[in-house]
């Protein structure tokens, strides 16, 4: 289980998270939606300990992330696969070498096993035969899938997706959505998906939470979010700025 409790985070005078709380239960896929710059990626970075909260707590599998020693943090990270917005593939390495990085570090794999695991992971994301290609030779969608393959290669318990469908065409977006569902069904992973693509959020999520002004404004099942009465949430999911403005006016 992933739990963020009353998390505050500011960068200089800019308050990004302002009492943020969210729980992702075992086996669930939760989408965190929100406006650009709302702090969604900052939230993900707190979960893997890339950022520390100013106050509040983050727990992964019952472990308090900020209190972990460096070694404990690395061990915790072995349970978490992170799919970066722009894939963050190591551009001096082939796709196979990218995938091998996590496996080599986590240890316990022989050379043949690493090779098998790489080809199996690439097959899962429909990139068979791409082992010897370099990231620069891939399209945007292929890069995102290669990033996903790297994240699942060491069989993490949790998967964190940072804007997995941003900048992709509708067909490639549907392919990525299908892969997210496939990861849940085939590997049983617990996922937190950061997105502002509502179509994608409805497709892949058990629950959707909306981040607004540093905290969760509303959360619920896709149907509950679709039928929400909150003007800001409705404005966001329906893409209607006038509703958002109305909601802001109501709040103030």
């Amino acid at each position, binding site marked *: 289980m992933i739990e963020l409790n009353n998390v505050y985070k500011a960068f200089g005078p800019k308050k990004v998270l302002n009492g943020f709380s969210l729980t992702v239960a075992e086996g669930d896929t939760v989408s965190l939606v929100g406006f650009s710059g709302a702090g969604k990626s900052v939230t993900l*970075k707190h979960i*893997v300990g*890339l950022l520390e909260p100013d106050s509040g707590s983050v727990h992964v599998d019952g472990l308090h992330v900020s209190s972990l020693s*460096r070694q404990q943090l*690395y*061990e915790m*990270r*072995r349970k*978490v*696969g*992170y799919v*970066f*917005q*722009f894939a*963050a*593939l*190591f*551009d001096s390495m082939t796709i196979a070498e990218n995938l091998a*990085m*996590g496996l080599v*570090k*986590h240890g316990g794999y022989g050379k043949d096993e690493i090779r098998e695991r790489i080809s199996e992971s690439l097959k899962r994301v429909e990139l068979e035969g791409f082992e010897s290609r370099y990231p620069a030779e891939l399209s945007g969608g292929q890069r995102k899938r290669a990033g996903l393959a*790297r994240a699942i290669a060491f069989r993490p318990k949790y998967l964190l997706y940072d804007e997995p469908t941003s900048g992709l065409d509708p067909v490639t977006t549907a392919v990525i959505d299908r892969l997210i569902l496939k990861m849940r069904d085939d590997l049983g992973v617990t996922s937190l998906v950061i997105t502002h693509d509502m179509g994608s959020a409805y497709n892949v999520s058990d629950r959707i939470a909306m981040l607004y002004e540093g905290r969760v404004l509303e959360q619920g099942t896709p149907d509950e979010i679709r039928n929400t009465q909150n003007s800001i949430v409705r404005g966001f999911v329906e893409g209607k700025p006038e509703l958002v403005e109305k909601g802001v006016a109501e709040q103030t």
Partner: protein
Amino acid sequence: MRAASAFEKPFAAVGRASGGFFAAFGRFGGFIFEVFRSLRDVTTWLPLLFGQMRRLGVDSIPIALFLAGFTGIVLALQASYTFTGAIPLYFVGVLVGKTMILELGPVLTGLALSGRVGANIAAQLGTMRVSEQIDALETLAYNPVAYLVVPRVLAGILMFPIIVIFSNAIGIFAGMITSINMLEMSSQEFIRGLRLFHEPFDITYSLIKTTSFGLIITVVGSFQGFNTQGGAEGVGIATTRAVVISSMLILLFDALWAVLLLQGQ
């Protein structure tokens, strides 16, 4: 908060700038501490060390030798011009040897490598920072300092003295060839001058300086790369800073070593 008056604004700006300087200084100290701490992670940095020694060291030899060769030629000719009539010509060997070993070999090579190596490290790590590759390393349970910085720093420390030994040798050799061909000196005269005031400590001094320059160039380049913000512009700023700061530190340490090691010799 009350806005600063026109009188207070310059003081506020100085305060902010000096605060920023000390904060950066503190971060740099923390970074160096982290580099030393990451030396323990031998299994991460050792497999990458030899690749970095080749990239940062062996690949830098041609530019270093080019620089040293021409420096040797100019030193010999300028020495002869300066000494005309007043000082025996074999003193050209003294000047070429001493100047190359004590000063120009280490310092010119250091400044050239701050451009070639320091800029390369800052640009590479800066690009990795802004494209989240360093974050990706962390999420894969790698210590990014052990993986990216330690092999580069060790390669700098180990390889730069070797490069400077070659540079000194080529500079002196070029000075000798110039003296023989253009100043009508014999090789024996040049070597006599070279040996006249030579001290074994000169070589040690040259290598101590060079080792410190290797450390400065690689640590400053890595620090700037690790702290890059923004996109392409941020990488450009980091690269420029790496070259400027490491060049300034090289000159500062050059003076410092002279005070510490040559005074009282």
